[in-house]
């Protein structure tokens, strides 16, 4: 059944060969970027031992690089960056607020459990 009251959004994303070329260039750029970031992560992990002086720095670089990778996947591969602003925020903001809260509360709690309840060590 074809309904005439619905706008066919699916057709909006069509593009021609010329635009496609540009888009593919961007895709290859993101590919190289994601690969390089992964290689850097593994190299850091292999070269710097956990517990050494530089470890906190390495740990935070892992987290930042991961967020960078995630950002490129969501914004570029999943095309969220090309969607309307309202949609972008509806997807991202509730999620980020909830997860930030959960990270804060759980890691805080976990640390407190570890410090005050030594029997959890080495279960």
């Amino acid at each position, binding site marked *: 059944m074809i309904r005439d009251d*619905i*706008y*066919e*959004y*699916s*057709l*909006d*994303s*069509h*593009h021609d*060969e010329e*635009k*496609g070329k540009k888009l*593919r260039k961007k*895709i290859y750029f*993101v*590919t190289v970027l*994601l*690969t390089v970031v*992964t*290689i850097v*992560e*593994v190299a850091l*992990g*292999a070269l710097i031992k*956990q517990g050494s002086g530089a470890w906190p720095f390495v740990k935070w670089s*892992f*987290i930042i*690089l*991961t967020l960078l990778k*995630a950002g490129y*996947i*969501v914004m*570029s*591969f*999943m*095309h969220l960056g*090309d*969607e*309307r602003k*309202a*949609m972008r925020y*509806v*997807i991202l903001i*509730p*999620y980020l607020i*909830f*997860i930030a809260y*959960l*990270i804060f509360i*759980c*890691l805080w709690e*976990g*640390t407190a*459990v*570890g410090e005050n309840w030594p029997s*959890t*060590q*080495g*279960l």
Partner: protein
Amino acid sequence: MAGHASKQIDAKTLWGGKTSPFSTSYGKLMMWFFLVSDALTFGGLLIGYGMTRHAVDTAWPIGEETFNSLPFLGHGYPLIYVALMTFILIISSVTMVLAVEAGHRMDKKGVVKWMIATIIGGFFFVGSQAWEWSHFIHGSEFGKIELADGSQAIVKGHYGEVENFTIIEAGHHHSKGDVVKAGSHGMTQEDLDHDYRHAIAEGHVEGDKIFLHDGSVGKVAKKKNEHMELIVKSDGSEYKIGDKIEDHEKAATMYSKATTSGIKDNVIFGANLEQNEYGPQQYGQFFFFITGFHGFHVFSGVIINILILLGAMRGVYHKRGHYEMIEKTGLYWHFVDLVWVFVFTFFYLV
């Protein structure tokens, strides 16, 4: 993409019905909402993992200590295998986005080509995960040992393989004087080492004697373990968490004392839901659940991709006038990749 999304529409038309305020189709929007809820599930799992890890802290196993093997090449390659898995998944994400791009040009041939590549990548990833699980379940060559003071330690070093068992007491199969070695009795070197490890875990090795399944008793000839190092993972009366016994000779002696005690479960190989070689028990549970749940997503993603590929080959979407189906499955597939990026960091790297 471009088009309607970038056109200016006044607010009254936008929110007044008929058009979508997000300028996307119903299907795509619902896929996004599903992904948000799925992301909350994975977020909850990973944060639960983080909470346990913060509570246990020093006893937690380090990724590069646990995952350091490659198929056919053995040990000593920390994290290379998971990095390879990550790379496979990223590439299959790229081929997926190329399929979406081809769909936007109504290029049916391109869509089919890139979808096939994506499916192959997905199968490779699922297969890699199966190998990794098998490796995780079977454990390392050394296992985790319980020391004389009650502490537990994991072991690093070069494993000296078993040369043979010389039977000194006959059983159902073996008679006295038999030499069980690689190439005899249908045994390979791998079988021999596997049987020896199994006997250790069961407490069937005492001193240089091994008690075999058929009731016979053998004398073990084994090459020496070299470069041995113990890392304590739970407190005992003498050693504490994080202690390292780096004196190779001393570590080798302590290791062989633990393995030849004849006590069941004095040495644990691999991980299951009841015991775990690598560290705290929850580590195993989280590993199985999180990577398993993710692997299940990859597997269902591959199945969905195959169905969509069949649709594309039959020309269903071409007749429809747009390839939005590819875009929607693509969203799911990229999401699987996205989750893996986080699992990779928080399970293996940090």
